[in-house]
């Protein structure tokens, strides 16, 4: 099993959720984070000179799925989260040994 972690723009959360629902992926965990990208934020001008805002608000979603679902989930997030502008975010895939459903106590697999 794998965990797909995506850091996306807050305003793309809704499209991403809809895209995932369409491919049958409902379960996910969502939280707000702040992110610095490779450019370490954005630069702006004030009267006295430049200033940099380096922590931008992002949303992180975590989805645990079976290994074979990786492609379709990643693709679907990519499509729904992309604006083409800097700051669209990243997707990370990490291994999961085991998943348990608390209500039943059973090992869990994404159906």
């Amino acid at each position, binding site marked *: 099993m794998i965990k797909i972690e995506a850091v996306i*723009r*807050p*305003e793309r959360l809704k499209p991403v959720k809809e895209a995932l629902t369409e491919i049958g992926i409902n379960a996910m965990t969502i939280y707000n984070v702040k992110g610095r990208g490779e450019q370490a934020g*954005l630069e*702006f001008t*004030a009267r006295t000179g430049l*200033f940099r*805002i380096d922590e*931008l*608000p992002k949303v992180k979603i975590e989805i645990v799925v079976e290994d074979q679902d990786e492609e379709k989930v990643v693709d679907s997030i990519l499509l729904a989260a992309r604006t083409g502008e800097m700051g669209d975010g990243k997707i990370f895939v990490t291994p999961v040994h085991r998943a348990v459903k608390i209500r039943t106590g059973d090992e869990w697999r994404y159906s």
Partner: protein
Amino acid sequence: MKYGIAKPIAALGVLTFIVSMALPSVSAAGYDLDTASMTWIMVSTALVLLMTPGIALFYAGMLRKESVMSMLGQTMMVMVVVTLIWVTLGYTLAFGPSQAGLVGGLDYLLLNNTPYGESFLVEGIPDAQFMLFQLTFALVTAALVLGAVAERTKLKALLIFIVIWSIVVYAPIAHWVWGGGWFEDYFVSLDFAGGTVVHICSGVTALALAIVVGRRGSSIQKDRPHNLPLVFIGGALLWFGWFGFNGGSALAADGIAVNAMVVTQISAATAAGTWGLINYLHLGRPGVLGMVTGAVAGLVGITPAAGFVGPMEAIIIGAGAGAFCYATVALKHKLKADDALDVFAVHGVGGIWGALATGILAVPAITSDAGADGVKGLIYGGYDLFFGQIATVGVTAIYAFVISFIIIKVIAMFMDIRLDKKEEMIGQDLIEHGEAAYDI
């Protein structure tokens, strides 16, 4: 000096009422001071002053969390700029001796001839007190405008706009309606506490600004108010302050002030209920933001009428305000303009409804107590009033819209009036003020 306008203002509350009549002359010594009325207007002044931060909170709570400080900061800017303009120039343009009915003369420039201990303009209260009370109305009007162009308009552009607008839009309209301007020569009309001057004027100015400034970008998550309890606090301060706004507009501690408070409460409650009910029927659940907005709509609606109608008319006005403003908000997406916080829908439409309702419902017995003897609503056969209301609403709305539109267009020729896309995404708080509202 022509103090002839003083008596009707004194007698009527702040209002447009103007019927041709021979004004009794006032001796150079002025009126006697009335300490109870002075007390009431001191209190009312403080109450209305509190409405400006009330608006800021009401608005700021509805925005996303990245635009909070900018709304509060713009309101502080209004406090600064409008106060300074009013005491130097605005007041005399609004209430100085009329120059051909268009604008007040410069007799009160820099508050010259504006004594704190003598009463010439309004019977019973010192001129300086009237000036200060009126200032609080100018503040509210300017602050209301900000809601339409929230989250995207540069502070500097807004500042310049407010400076010019205070002088060429607000002051003249206040002069026409309340300061003895040309309206009285042509129209029979009534505006107790500022339906035209404050609400219609701010509503259409807001619309003009929103059109020129343009829509907010897609990266802004709209319709997700970041802090509704803040909106509630703002709404509570508005409701509270409105007792000074309408009650104080009697300019005396008298029965008309009492009646104004009674109908204010009734209209606000009715409109809040109407909004909640329609919301429930329409979308299945009554939103609290909606009910608070409805209350504000009801307060707006009763504003021009508060000195001229009774409790049962207040129910009608409140219900109408709730319904019409709700409908406008609901149809808002059809509008090209992005009036971010529904300033036009609530203050523009609410103000127009209130003005027309006054023309329809004004009760002869009450208008005569309020000093507008013989003026009455359409249902009592007062055609001249009804058409006067339509005319003054129309003139005010067109003037404010056109001139505001021109001002902001001209400003846009000389500078950027809005944030760029990247700045808008980050949010005005960090970009323009370098401050985040919360670290919770």
